[in-house]
């Protein structure tokens, strides 16, 4: 399937927004020209800090060529008719405008190193990557479609947790995503997650940690409870390393920490192993 027209438009729009702007590295303080930063996959050329990355930028760096998005038409709902300082629909409209995204995750199919795969990419710029019904629905659609195509799926996570404004409907998306993951993996399909900064709360406690292989980006903060909550509970400051990808690697929670510029290569390796094992994996017989 060809890259949809709107994706070209989307990326051109990003380009425009990012031009002639400078960003300060939060790690080393270096002022970085955003066009250079984008060319370097949003990694600081001085200290290797991995900036949070837009979903479409990520996708274009991962897929070989075309990306056929699915679930983009899943409608934003307001199940609780939530209003606090602003109405929830107004908040969403603001985020759509600001981020250029229709919701917190972009899902679809493409080739990665020649291997067909499903790809879901969360984006922290939309409501902090929180999971509501649209995110849950799109993840489920991705995995259902991946299951019917019998191809591996890869999900890049970035999330502040469940979305408050959708209340229990948001919490139920953990169950929905889990249901989809379970059916997908029970058929012998492989799920790989790449945890990016930050991956916490309900996303962390569902599909992020239900994958066959769990990769993380350097320095990403990953955990169930947020630092603030833990610090309030224990009434002291946490060390900087706590809940980083490197900390989790040492504690045995994740398979590997991979620098952003090497992530596509690693995914291609993993998809390659999966392709070689497909006969025995999917049919229980000789390769």
């Amino acid at each position: 399937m060809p890259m949809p027209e709107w994706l070209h438009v989307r990326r051109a729009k990003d380009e425009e927004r990012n031009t002639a702007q400078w960003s300060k590295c939060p790690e080393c303080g270096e002022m970085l020209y955003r066009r250079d930063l984008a060319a370097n996959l949003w990694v600081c050329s001085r200290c290797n800090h991995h900036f949070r990355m837009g979903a479409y930028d990520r996708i274009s760096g991962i897929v070989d060529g075309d990306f056929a998005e699915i679930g983009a038409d899943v409608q934003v709902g307001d199940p609780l008719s939530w209003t606090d300082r602003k109405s929830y629909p107004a908040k969403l409209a603001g985020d759509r405008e600001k981020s250029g995204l229709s919701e917190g995750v972009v899902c679809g199919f493409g080739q990665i190193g020649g291997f067909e795969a499903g790809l879901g990419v969360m984006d922290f710029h939309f409501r902090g990557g929180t999971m509501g019904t649209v995110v849950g629905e799109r993840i489920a659609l991705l995995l259902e479609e991946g299951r019917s195509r019998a191809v591996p799926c890869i999900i890049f996570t970035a999330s502040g947790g469940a979305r408050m404004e959708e209340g229990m409907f948001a919490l139920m998306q953990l169950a929905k995503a889990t249901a989809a993951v379970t059916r997908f993996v029970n058929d012998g399909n492989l799920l790989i997650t790449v945890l990016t900064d930050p991956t916490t709360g309900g996303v962390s406690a569902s599909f992020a940690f239900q994958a066959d292989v769990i990769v993380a980006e350097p320095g990403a903060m990953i955990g169930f409870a947020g630092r603030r909550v833990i610090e309030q509970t224990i009434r002291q400051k946490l060390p900087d390393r706590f809940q980083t990808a490197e900390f989790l690697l040492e504690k045995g929670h994740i398979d590997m920490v991979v620098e952003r510029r090497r992530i596509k290569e690693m995914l291609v390796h993993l998809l390659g192993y999966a392709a070689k094992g497909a006969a025995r994996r999917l049919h229980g017989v000789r390769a």
Partner: protein
Amino acid sequence: MNPFADRERALFELERRIAELRTASADQPVVIASEIATLEAKYQEVLHDVYGSPTPWQKVHIARHPNRPTALEYIAAFDRFDELHGDRAYRDDQAVVGGLGLLRGRAVMAIGQQRGRDTKENLRRNFGMVAPEGYRKVQRLAHLATRFGVPMVTFVDTKGADPGIGSEERAQSEAIAQCLVAFTDATVPIVAVIIGEGGSGGALALAIADRVIMLENSTYSVASPEGCAAILWADATKAEEAASHLKLTAQDLLRFGIVDEIVPEPLGGANRDPATVVARVLDRVDAALSDLDRYASPTLLSARYEKYRRIGSSKRDSSPAGKR
């Protein structure tokens, strides 16, 4: 803190006076009997007044009431219970209790979050906040239920999963995530009962079920009202406001199709008559299990999938590239 405090004072005053009169009635039975009757009528009136239609924030407090029956009170009403311990690796987390038992003659695996009923027990049970090894015990028991071929009954009652350093170090996210898988995959019927607070993912880890029963005054929410207020407005004191926004009551969740059934409580909450509530809940669990017993395991699993697949499924937009 307690939103009933002011109005409860009148109630307690009436209770005290009725008790006094009863003691005194040995001397002047007739006169006093009439006085007692008057006061009791008044008492019922005030009772309705105080507890009759609790706000969400009031329900949060009923759900947290120290005398509200806990998981072990329900389990104690089983015909028999043999507790099983441990995650087979690290520790027996006492914030969650589980084991095989007989309920109305049926073999079941019962699992419940257990808060303490006094300070000492609260420390031992970490206020019902489960650590990763507790969730791994739950996974093991869910697997064991399938191994034995007996249905699962869970009692959900937690502010949330334990948010301590150790729990993060031992992969709380993974432990909860795999609990969700274990319940999704279990080939036996599952009935979950929200008996107190159902706080976030830490509660959901025991609540993926074929039937979800909720007590009238229990709460079940994506975050505690305090947590929600802190997250959205950086102000935990706005919890009361958050409580009404979150739609965390049994009535809301029944309407949303997120819970299947509500078990009524006495006026003022289950703490006012625990034995009746416990029996009522076990009756409803029994009825749900009788119903679920009719289905073969593949049917159960399909129905469970469809149920969670549907919740909050948004309609599709017809515009070409979605709303952007």
